[in-house]
């Protein structure tokens, strides 16, 4: 196989995995899922680091540093904001349990 065909194979398989893996998502999670996927493409940071670190031209390095800043905002901000959203889904559990317990106590009394 020639190299472009290897890449094409990886690409096509990834397309199917990408669709399959989220096909059963409930609409409740659409927003966090979009935000999480958004953070994942922040991996372009890796590319920005590579390009900047291997460049010798001063202007190119400056542009590369801008790309690194942008990509880190995407990656770090994306994961943090997704976690913040998901935290809200989880936090209520102990409270709900505590409330149910309080109600039971009330009923017992």
């Amino acid at each position: 196989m020639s190299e472009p065909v290897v890449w094409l194979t990886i690409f096509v398989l990834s397309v199917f995995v990408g669709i399959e893996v989220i096909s059963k998502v409930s609409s409740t999670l659409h927003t966090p899922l979009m935000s999480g996927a958004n953070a994942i493409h922040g991996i372009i940071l890796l590319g920005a680091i590579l390009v900047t670190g291997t460049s010798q031209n001063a202007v190119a390095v400056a542009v590369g540093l801008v790309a690194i800043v942008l990509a880190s905002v995407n990656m770090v901000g994306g994961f943090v904001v997704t976690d913040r959203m998901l935290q809200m889904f989880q936090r209520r559990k102990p409270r709900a349990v505590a409330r149910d317990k309080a109600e039971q106590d009330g009923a017992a009394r």
Partner: protein
Amino acid sequence: MSGTPVWVQLVYLAAAICFILALKGLSGPRTARAGNIVGAVAAVVGCVVVFFYGNLHHVGWILGAIVVGSIGGVIGARRVQMTQMPQMVALFNGVGGGAAALVALLELHERLPHIASENWFTLAATAFTIAVGAISFAGSVITFLKLQELITGRPILFPGLPVVFGLGLVGVVLLGVLTVTLPAMWIGIVLALVGLLVGVLLVLPVGGADVPIVISLLNAFTGLTVAAGGYVLGNTLLLVAGTLVGASGTFLTKLMAGAMGRSVLNILFGALKGGSTLGAGEVSDRPVRSAGPEDVAILLGYAGRVIVVPGYGLAVAQAQHTLRELVDVLGARGITVDYAIHPVAGRMPGHMNVLLAEAQVPYEQLREMDDINSEFKQTDVVLVVGANDVVNPAAKSTPGAPIYGMPILNADEAQQIVFMKRSMRPGFAGIENELLFDPKTTLLFGDAKDSLGKLLTAVKAL
């Protein structure tokens, strides 16, 4: 791929698997948070590895830039109000697209001296990354401005927009072809600039209600951009991660558009055809029945079964905490109360769940549309707070209405309907809601937070 040590490629493979697991985790409520963390760890590991094999120069500067960007990202992510989260995601997505375009431009610059030996496919992928990255960046900035209401949320059209947009697209294709046939730095830069223009023109005509779908679409665009960038740089991790996001993002966009009963093409180009998202926005003068908070309190306080339909108006008024208090008080009176969540309630699918979760509404009270729709018949009162289109029966009864075919909550089947609205203005879709004029309907005018506060006091006084 050549030049990358095998161990690094294996680390990339592991990171790619983690990204798949992250997406898988994010699609289930119990695994979502863990999934997100798995994704974050994989991304960090992927980036750290580069420093160990890349023989990088300017490491100090690079680390500095990462610190600056990370601090900016964390501050943005922590400070943002939950109601403003869609535009924050749009902004994060845009900067990612911008970074990808810059990376591709730099790579083009690096390769120019020995361009003759380059595969045409690599150059095509470079052109794709530059153009689509720029489109995603500019488009995301416009969606941010629209949602932040720094510019109007209504579709922006000017005479000749379709022509300019068409010329822009042709320009992108021509410049892309030139990048492959006669590669030069200035062509890449012009391509990026024309891409920016196309991105702006793509989003300007989209109405406020549809902007979230566009965010999702641009998210998929950025994913594909990163994938193409991965091919250019010979990096498998970028290729796999970008493709995963591109594919799942496209599929998610389709799901979201489907929940609104619209096609993606209609959302993007509907306004250009003088189509649906424009709406009349006129105020009707037909008679309605309005009531004060005390009357509504009696209606609610002596009901047996109540369903609340929250909409974006609730979030805008920051009234979700007051609403939760009201529901708690009603619950204490022995009334069964649930929230009926339409898939597109709020500004993005699932947005309303996040907002109500923030107000500590118990998860069990949040019911999805398909789950609760059969229960409206046995419901005494439906309380619609700041929602409109998601309960508009025109979606079922009026072929030709912009929302026709959109699944709706069957609020019209309840015994009584109470609408809390600021005015008689139609919803985002810009069409009148027959339900407002139904004899079973009572309207409570006013700001949602204000009205809910009064309602709460009145119910407590019963």
